[in-house]
């Protein structure tokens, strides 16, 4: 199917009538995903500063609220089942949703807040024709046109997008839009664009999981964290980081329970009620962040919890670069380990 760029705003305006439509928009100098009312606001083909994960897993969300009055206790669950479309997601962000699915819906647990949103959200991605220099998606089992996690994939042909359904849901969605069929020439052009698109940088993660298996006590961690400020720019802007904290907010007998993103880079993250903290310094925190993404997650879900979007690289206040960290880990001598 083909969507002319000039028709995008109108198409989104129509979708807004039926769905909540999230799209990347420019807001005070940054690109962020927002539920839009006007299709013309969407800035497709951009990569948002904050990852699209917040559509399914908002930074702060009320799980339930309660009120106590003369009639007794009233509780209200805040499960959001609004039919939604995320339009203009990057393939790395779509891929991250597949990874998050493992965490929020597995044999042991289903997170109803996440999964309800997930089930009710159609993901329309825009492939990356020109990935940035900090992108390394191709090195972490993905790529600039990876369809994993997307329902529809759009390829930028210049004045139009080629729209291809990835899932059944995507197919139905595209049928509803009554778009023109794509000609052979358009399809061939899209294929050429896809084959030309290359992630800007590379990281070799072959054997990384096994290497990390034997590195928990390795001296490499002793110095790695030294310049890290211990802020959460890397984790909050990471599409796969998913740790959260739950807080109660109450006044008198009324209140709500709120879930907020949390970060393993904060000392408070592991501070016990007793005052004991098992991760006493940046050393343990950095080790945790690397291990979680490239070892524990692989162990549990057979997938690397990094999609190579490069946001942590671009936004670190002290220029810590995960690509360098991974390369250094690969180069470490681990004695019996074969690197």
């Amino acid at each position, binding site marked *: 199917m083909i969507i002319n760029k000039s028709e995008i705003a109108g198409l989104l305006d129509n979708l807004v009538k039926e769905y909540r439509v999230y799209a990347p928009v420019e807001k005070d100098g940054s690109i962020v995903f927002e539920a839009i009312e006007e299709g013309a606001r969407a800035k497709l083909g951009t990569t948002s500063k904050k990852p699209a994960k917040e559509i399914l897993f908002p930074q702060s969300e009320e799980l339930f609220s309660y009120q106590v009055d003369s009639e007794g206790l009233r509780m209200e669950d805040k499960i959001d089942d609004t039919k939604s479309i995320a339009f203009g997601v990057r393939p790395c962000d779509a891929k991250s949703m597949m990874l998050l699915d493992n965490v929020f819906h597995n044999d042991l647990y289903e997170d109803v807040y996440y999964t309800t949103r997930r089930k009710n959200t159609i993901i329309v991605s825009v492939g990356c024709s020109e990935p940035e220099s900090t992108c390394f998606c191709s090195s972490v089992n993905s790529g600039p046109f990876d369809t994993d996690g997307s329902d529809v994939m759009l390829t930028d042909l210049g004045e139009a997008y080629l729209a291809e359904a990835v899932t059944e849901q995507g197919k139905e969605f595209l049928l509803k839009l009554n778009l023109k069929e794509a000609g052979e020439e358009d399809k061939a052009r899209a294929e050429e664009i896809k084959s030309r698109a290359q992630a800007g940088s590379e990281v070799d993660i072959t054997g990384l999981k096994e290497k990390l298996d034997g590195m928990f006590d390795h001296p490499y961690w002793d110095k790695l964290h030294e*310049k890290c400020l211990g802020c*959460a720019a890397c984790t909050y802007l990471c599409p796969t980081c998913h740790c959260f904290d739950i*807080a109660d907010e109450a006044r008198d007998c009324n209140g709500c329970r*709120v879930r907020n993103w949390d970060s393993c880079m904060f000392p*408070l993250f592991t501070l016990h009620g007793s005052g004991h903290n098992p991760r006493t310094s940046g050393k343990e925190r950095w080790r945790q962040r690397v291990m979680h993404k490239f070892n524990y997650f692989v162990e549990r879900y057979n997938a690397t919890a990094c999609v190579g979007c490069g946001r942590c690289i671009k936004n670190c206040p*002290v220029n810590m670069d995960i*690509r360098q960290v991974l390369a250094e880990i690969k180069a470490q001598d681990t004695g019996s380990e074969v690197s």
Partner: protein
Amino acid sequence: MQNLSKVIQDTAKKLLEEKKVDLVVGFAKGSLPLRSTPYFARTVEEAGELIWNEYCENNLANYLRKREEKVAVVAKGCDVRAIVALMKENQIDREKLYIIGVPCQGMIDRGKASELVGGREILEAEINGEEVVLKGRGFEEKSSRKELLYDTCARCAYGNPVIYDELVGEEVPAKEVSFKEVEEFEALSAEERAEFLAKEMEKCIRCYACRNACPMCYCEECFVDSSRPQWISKRANSVKDNLIFQGVRVFHQLGRCADCGACERACPMGIKLSLLTRKGVKDVKEIFGYEAGLNPDDKPVLSDFSTEDPQPFLMKE
């Protein structure tokens, strides 16, 4: 700048070789264009990695608090101001610190550079004297160094370190400190100011990069992290609470803030934090004639009292 890097390397090597220090904190080449990265050199070989350029934007005083070992630091004007302020608060032992002072002409703002090229990705940057050349896929844009400076750097009057053990490079010409942007902000109506702040605070993601990048923010428990009592909501989407966070941070910095702008540079969301911190700096200067971190021998202004102190803030119509 190449020469300056070499001088810094040689100085650092000598200090390490002669065992005058155990560690040199400075900058090394960053992994991205327009970036240098804090670097910790413990060996002569590592000292060879030290550099100096217009991208050394972090305040290294942040790494010097409560150090056990003898440390040398490559410090520009604002780093030294923070060092002086931290010395007064017994966070830095001057006896154990060797300051390699570097006069600073200001650091280059990556955000401004990105704006100049319309948000396209900068793949290479060159500085030839006063000219900055930014290159990317299919473009090359030129600008002057001065235009690309961080606002805090452009308005800074203290590029020359106020104390040092050794000065590397030539002193920069004296400048008047400017609070132009704060004056513009003050001229707005209360409603306009509230609107502006709300818009800025809406961007906040509570990553606390600002707080953690600040050399003067070192409370063992920051009030925002306290859960008993919980002073403010942990929600990042609460504009009011975000403003309380920043507001309290600014109040806690009164008379202490070294006006380096490290908080604003660290912010991944581009919040104009220095406007708030500089309002505090300006007020303290106007009311008490005090600027933090300029004189190692005076008392911190809010730890000092004189009956002559003006008190305009106690009574206001």
